[in-house]
């Protein structure tokens, strides 16, 4: 399709953008790699010395590391499970004809547009607050002691907030998938005597397999780096109960002022994300083949 001339022209026109993106990526990466090999404390500036891989050793043997890794996996897994298990029925409901469907759809999708910091603040101060929160008020109405979410069940509270943000995304993707399901197939199933549940398990769920893998892939990428919600609500605590890898890196750099260790942590996070991505892409690839 392209002649030599247009190919050359295309390359010429693309190169500034590609070059800029490349520099944009490679400079921070190179600097991170460089910092990760230094003893670099913000409390002692100007005294950087090369220490090889010691920062990695400190980061990986830090007792906080395993806890954070576990917390990251729990957070990602729980939010994925909640968004898909609730997203499928929600999408099914929104697919039904009803009055004001467009408005209802808009309302359901709205949480996705709220920025993480704001939604975390709303949850913290208006909904989950043990004294002035909505849930606390409901609890006292029925005579139950309000739960102090961020102290007694901090991880659950964070999962709740993040799941609330990502549920609309899953619902939206699954809803569009449902709308592309073949009507005649459902009618054929009806003629074959399949009830609503059989039709769902034998036709709709297999049809949704592909969009579900897409949701898992995209959500995982973003959920590995959840930060604002934790920062605003629990600050990683109590103790390490809600510290994930992203928050741990932050605390290394800006609470303990250890830039070297934080850089090493950043590189470890990149490796973890790549390991996960490797498996996910394989799973999704198998589903997208057909």
């Amino acid at each position, binding site marked *: 399709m392209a002649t030599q001339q247009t190919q050359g022209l295309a390359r010429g026109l693309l190169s500034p953008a590609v070059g800029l993106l490349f520099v944009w990526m490679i400079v921070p990466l190179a600097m991170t790699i460089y910092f990760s090999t230094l003893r670099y404390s913000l409390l002692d500036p100007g005294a950087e010395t090369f220490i090889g891989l010691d920062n990695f050793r400190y980061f990986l043997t830090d007792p906080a590391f395993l806890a954070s890794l576990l917390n990251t996996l729990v957070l990602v897994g729980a939010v994925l499970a909640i968004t898909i298990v609730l997203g499928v029925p929600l999408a099914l409901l929104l697919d039904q004809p009803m009055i004001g469907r467009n408005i209802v759809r808009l309302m359901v999708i709205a949480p996705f547009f709220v920025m993480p910091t704001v939604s975390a603040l709303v949850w913290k101060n208006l909904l989950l607050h043990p004294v002035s929160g909505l849930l606390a008020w409901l609890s006292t109405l029925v005579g139950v002691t309000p739960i102090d979410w961020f102290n007694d069940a901090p991880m659950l509270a964070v999962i709740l907030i993040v799941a609330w943000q990502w549920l609309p995304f899953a619902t939206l993707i699954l809803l569009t998938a449902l709308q592309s399901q073949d009507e005649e197939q459902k009618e054929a199933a009806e*003629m074959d005597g399949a009830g609503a549940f059989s039709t769902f398990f034998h036709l709709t769920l297999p049809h949704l397999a592909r969009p579900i893998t897409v949701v898992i892939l995209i959500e995982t990428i973003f959920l590995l780096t959840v930060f604002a919600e934790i920062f605003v609500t629990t600050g990683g605590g109590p103790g390490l109960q809600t510290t994930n890898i992203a928050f741990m890196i932050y605390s290394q750099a800006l609470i303990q002022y250890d830039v070297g260790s934080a850089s090493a942590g950043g590189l470890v996070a990149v490796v973890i994300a790549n390991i996960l991505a490797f498996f996910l892409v394989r799973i999704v690839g198998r589903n997208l083949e057909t």
Partner: protein
Amino acid sequence: MGQITLQSVHKSFGPLNIIKDANLDIEDGSFVVFVGPSGCGKTTLLRLIAGLEDVTSGQILIDGRNVVNVPPAKRGLSMVFQSYALYPHMSVRGNIAFGLKMAGMPRPEIDRKVEAAAATLNLTSYLDRKPRELSGGQRQRVAIGRAIVREPKAFLFDEPLSNLDAALRVQMRMEVTRLQKQLATTAIYVTHDQVEAMTMADRIVVLNAGRVEQYGTPLELYDRPVNLFVAGFIGSPKMNFVSGLPASLHGAATIGIRPEHLRVVGDGEGWPGRVSVAEHLGSDTFLYVDAAELGLLTVRGLGEVHLKGGDRVWLSPDPARLHRFDKEGVAIRP
């Protein structure tokens, strides 16, 4: 058994009347074709019988039992859809077995029936394939297999051959007819193709704008159409309609002459005209003759007729095969 009776069935979508007072009596074991132009309501009528749509009023009786409030699966009918509607992630075996599985039939019996159906339709070697790995004709056969395995009272076909190419369509037409005769199960078949209707049907229902225009055997419709619509719809090429003086000579508002009942005759007799196009098919020759105020007439000549565009001809209708219609378009019978 599979006797289906429609009694004054109406169907409207909001203010739109799709089916207006349909009355039909479909005998057990017969092959009935619903034919009509697009939008005439033939598919809606089929879906009403299947139970995929609710009737607005009237009764549908299957073997004497009113099934208007019976869900589709309990009516004992099975349907072949236009898109085949195969379940994409199930194998051919899974597709054919699905209805039986839903009915809670024991596994060995399902296997036996699926194997038998597959053998009938030459699908045995494809049983473990997915629908996307099959050709159009094979998918069609799977859809039919899914229908026959349930041993229904009647088959419902919704334009099942319209997605196949011409050669395959002729072949499947024969296969479907043969299979239906072999199983001796009632079949209702919807098509807009009048050739399919004429070749496959025991009886044809001609529908127009939600009304049953005529119900009869293919040759009844061909030889004795009840009105202008049926006369024009059945037969290919279309029947010629002539009104005015030649019609009033026969005591009618319009007369209809089929292309094969118009003969080219010698000078001076009959209607003069000029050949505008001659189509030579070898077995037949179709002449499109511009006959002045009578309009464009189609003539079908047997074998080779050595005429070409621009030739002057005289046409004479076979008086015994004239169809006469009154002002309302209703056939006049002697």
